[in-house]
């Protein structure tokens, strides 16, 4: 047997996170950590493993598969073995396992690890879903209630362990996990989302919504990270000597922040922000894991603050609330709504009218409520007739209906829809 010549030790940071097993195998081979017999044994073990996997994948019905299929099966095997090896802390022990243990046994252990991750991640998802407070962001909602459930439904730990199937997972976290795949990605993602969620739960949902509205009018559709925005304002509150019962930062608060930071210099700002972070964490009484997570964002936050200070754009970091779109005022008292059956009879009668003047007469005689009128506008009045109906209405009624239309558009979760015919006509009419 050729003597193993142990050369340069392999460091963890040298290994590729996504292709962990392959990179370990290559590095160990390059550094002479395997004898030729050991390497041959590993290769044969992998060959037998892929042969078995193809057999199982095709239910024993096919000896050949498309190359892409075989690639995928191999990637799954490598990913699984890599996931298991990552749980072994000592590098020498990893090498020892590869040289002494049967690859099939290593693979079976790896599947147990992945199943454990899957069950743990699922429990984490349930926790996040139970703690979820709807702040209206579509990406977050879809990720939690569509994307991840889809993943757990479709994840194939046996043949496609490296994949992330299912619905869309596109809510952005403050940490990047693009170097991870499969259930490792999901596990890391959910771990972080829990920390971000716990931090945000220190503040009221109403305050967060106001803050997000201040950040962007279209925050509901935008791909944003809520945690970073909340963290920024929470820090701003402390710098401007406000308490954390609100997340509001006014212009004068920003001036205070600017005055404090402007003459500090780079290292001065970083040191100062570090003390503010400590104060924030003390006040919020977070757990160690949550604290560590907040600290992990410190460097990026310092850099961003310094850049915005230089560009005199601190409002990008410490955000002011925006006034809400006014909901329709309650000062207008609507008439009584018609009984549903009576309304349907009226609509039928209106649709049988030959002349517009007859329609107008029926409407003025029977319709007292704006709700009924909007129904009639949708179902019985057509282009060329709208203005005649609008002429009958008071300025107040026109204004109120217009506000309702604009309010519907602002609060739509889905992308903006075009107005119905009468709505567009009313807005034009109101602007004359």
């Amino acid at each position: 047997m050729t003597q193993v010549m142990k050369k340069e030790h392999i460091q963890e940071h040298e290994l590729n996170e996504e292709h962990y097993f392959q990179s370990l195998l290559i590095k160990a081979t390059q550094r002479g950590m395997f004898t030729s017999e050991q390497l041959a044994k590993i290769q044969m073990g992998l060959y037998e493993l892929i042969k078995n996997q193809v057999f199982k994948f095709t239910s024993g019905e096919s000896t050949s598969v498309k190359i892409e299929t075989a690639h995928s099966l191999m990637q799954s095997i490598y990913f699984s073995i890599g996931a298991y090896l990552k749980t072994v802390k000592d590098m020498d022990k990893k090498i020892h396992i590869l040289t002494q243990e049967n690859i099939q046994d290593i693979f079976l252990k790896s599947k147990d690890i992945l199943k454990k991750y899957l069950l743990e991640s699922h429990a984490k998802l349930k926790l996040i879903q139970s703690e979820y407070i709807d702040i209206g962001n579509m990406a977050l909602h879809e990720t939690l209630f569509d994307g991840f459930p889809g993943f757990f439904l479709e994840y194939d730990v046996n043949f496609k362990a490296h994949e992330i199937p299912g619905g869309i997972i596109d809510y952005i976290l403050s940490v990047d996990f693009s170097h991870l795949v499969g259930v490792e990605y999901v596990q890391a993602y959910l771990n972080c989302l829990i920390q971000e969620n716990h931090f945000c739960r220190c503040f009221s949902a109403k305050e967060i919504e106001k803050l997000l509205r201040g950040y962007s009018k279209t925050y509901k559709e935008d791909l944003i990270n809520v945690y970073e925005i909340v963290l920024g304002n929470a820090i701003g509150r402390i710098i401007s000597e406000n308490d954390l019962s609100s997340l509001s930062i006014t212009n004068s608060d920003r001036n205070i922040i600017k005055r404090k930071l402007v003459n500090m210099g780079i290292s001065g700002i970083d040191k100062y922000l570090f003390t503010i972070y400590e104060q924030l964490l003390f006040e919020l009484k977070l757990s160690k894991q949550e604290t560590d997570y907040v600290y992990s964002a410190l460097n990026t936050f310092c850099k961003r603050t310094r850049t915005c200070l230089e560009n005199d754009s601190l409002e990008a970091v410490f955000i002011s609330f925006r006034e809400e779109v006014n909901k329709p005022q309650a000062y207008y008292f609507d008439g009584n709504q018609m009984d549903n059956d009576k309304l349907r009879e009226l609509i039928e009668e209106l649709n049988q009218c030959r002349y517009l003047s007859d329609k107008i007469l029926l409407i003025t005689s029977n319709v007292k409520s704006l709700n009924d009128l909007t129904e009639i506008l949708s179902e019985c009045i057509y282009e060329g007739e709208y203005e005649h109906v609008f002429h009958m209405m008071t300025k107040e009624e026109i204004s109120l209906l217009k506000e309702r239309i604009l309010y519907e558009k602002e609060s739509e979760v889905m992308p903006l829809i075009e107005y119905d015919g009468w709505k567009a006509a009313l807005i034009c009419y109101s602007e004359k």
Partner: protein
Amino acid sequence: MKNEFSILPLDTMKSEYPMEIRACNKFTSKFGIVLSDTEIDLLAKARWTALEQNGRIEFGGGILQKLIFEFCDSPFLHQDNFTSTIEELQSIFYYFKNECLEKFSDDELIESMKISFDKECQGSTDFLIGVMLKKMSHSSILNYNDRESSDLHYNEQEGEFDEEDKL
């Protein structure tokens, strides 16, 4: 990490294959067909070429043995044309595995090829492709996807995992 197969001992796999084919002679000799070492090497090389041409890969014995066993009693095959025909049939087989989208097992496809070869095609591999394509378009589709791919089954109604010993 583009070539996932670079770690595997593919050369070893290729060199072991002819021994399995040699073992077929014991059976095929009853039908007057005995493959020489040269012919066996030719078929073994042709197998890899056919796989490559059809974008497929095979681990283990492959279908050559099955083809030989299935076709050795064909009234249209004899010692002189057996090797060349099997070589063509091998290529046709992998072509059809792709065409049928993996919906037929190896055994079903080989059996169907043999029946068509002996009946409608009268021993012609040229006609075999057309006849097989026609058959496939009329046949029922077998659902490959009924295979349970995971032994952790996610119960959507309960919102939890049921663990089953499947594989």
